[in-house]
């Protein structure tokens, strides 16, 4: 791997370790292997959002041309957010694409993602279904996001109403994650979700 990229990741790694945010447990970076090309990021769900209390893991791949090109970042933890794919975890964020600048670091990327979680941009969505719900039914969106945080990221808010509906679909032979996805998509309308799953 390119020498600049490795050198930089080493320095940035130290920067994150020294940072205040790590002390506050809000961001963290871990190495995967010793190659410095693949890392695991960790973001705490920002306070006063449906993601509060959850821990979200990220897959960070550092390209050969880093820092002249952005790192490839994806959510490994499933998340319900207009700018993040609920299926693949792909992120729609300008600084990870054309607005990248070479002076940005892993630390600033993780902090930007945390800011994105706190302030979604539904007009530039990655997941159109989530974005539509965010705009049309903000309350259902907040409940859904909070439920997903509870299930996938260890958040505190259990939603027994949603769990019952999911269980109904599981009883019909649907896989759990698929049932949750369909119900979330159809605003927790059990009939419409069932219809879609069996059509």
């Amino acid at each position, binding site marked *: 791997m390119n*020498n*600049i990229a490795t*050198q*930089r990741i080493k*320095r*940035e790694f130290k920067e994150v370790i020294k940072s205040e945010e790590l002390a506050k447990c809000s961001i963290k970076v871990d190495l995967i292997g010793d190659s410095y090309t693949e890392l695991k990021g960790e973001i705490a769900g920002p306070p006063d959002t449906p993601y509060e209390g959850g821990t979200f893991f990220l897959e960070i791949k550092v390209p050969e*041309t880093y*820092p*002249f*090109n952005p790192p490839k970042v994806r959510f490994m933890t499933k998340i319900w957010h207009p700018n993040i794919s609920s299926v693949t975890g792909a992120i729609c964020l300008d600084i990870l694409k*054309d607005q990248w*600048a*070479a*002076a*940005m*670091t892993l630390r600033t990327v993780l902090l930007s993602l945390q800011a994105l979680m706190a302030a979604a941009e539904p007009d530039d969505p990655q997941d159109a279904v989530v974005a539509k719900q965010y705009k049309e039914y903000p309350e259902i969106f907040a409940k859904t996001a909070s439920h997903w945080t509870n299930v996938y990221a260890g958040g505190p808010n259990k939603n027994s109403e949603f769990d019952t509906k999911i269980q109904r679909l599981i009883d019909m032979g649907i896989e759990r994650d698929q049932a949750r996805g369909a119900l979330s998509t159809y605003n927790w309308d059990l009939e419409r979700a069932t219809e879609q799953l069996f059509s």
Partner: protein
Amino acid sequence: MATTSNESDSSRKNTDNRENDNKDEQNNMFECNICLDYAKDAVVSVCGHLFCWPCLHQWLETRSSRQVCPVCKAVISKDKVIPIYGRGNTKQEDPRNKVPPRPAGQRTEPDANTGFPGFNFGDGGFHLSFGIGAFPFGFLTSFNFSDRHGVPVGGQLPQDDHYLSKLFLWIAVIFIIWLLLA
């Protein structure tokens, strides 16, 4: 007594820490914003951000269509980057070569304000231009007399100026009357 000695100990520790912090800060001050290492062949952008020249050059190459400062995203270009020449270390050792040399500093010589401006009529002091457009008034577009510094130099020039402008005015008036009559 014990407390006092403790206090002085802790205050000494504090000053030590502060000195270390200062040293760290000073080192950070001269780090390239791209490789985060001590800046080699340092250049500074117009917006004031420090880079190694090879790093900045590679950044400008990567984003040739949209050249912005990697730190503040202000518009930057190769021509407007200022090299920093420190004292001492002048060896040209750079592992990432194949990079064009860092742009030279831009120097402007101070104005050597000598000679007799009166004789400068021919070399750049006199400027006269005409244009004949579709519209007859286009005829007398511009004529101006300027010396080097835009200040009247005295002597004959201002009077000539006055005389010539009157002359041209008359030519223009005659031309317009001729156009109207024709």
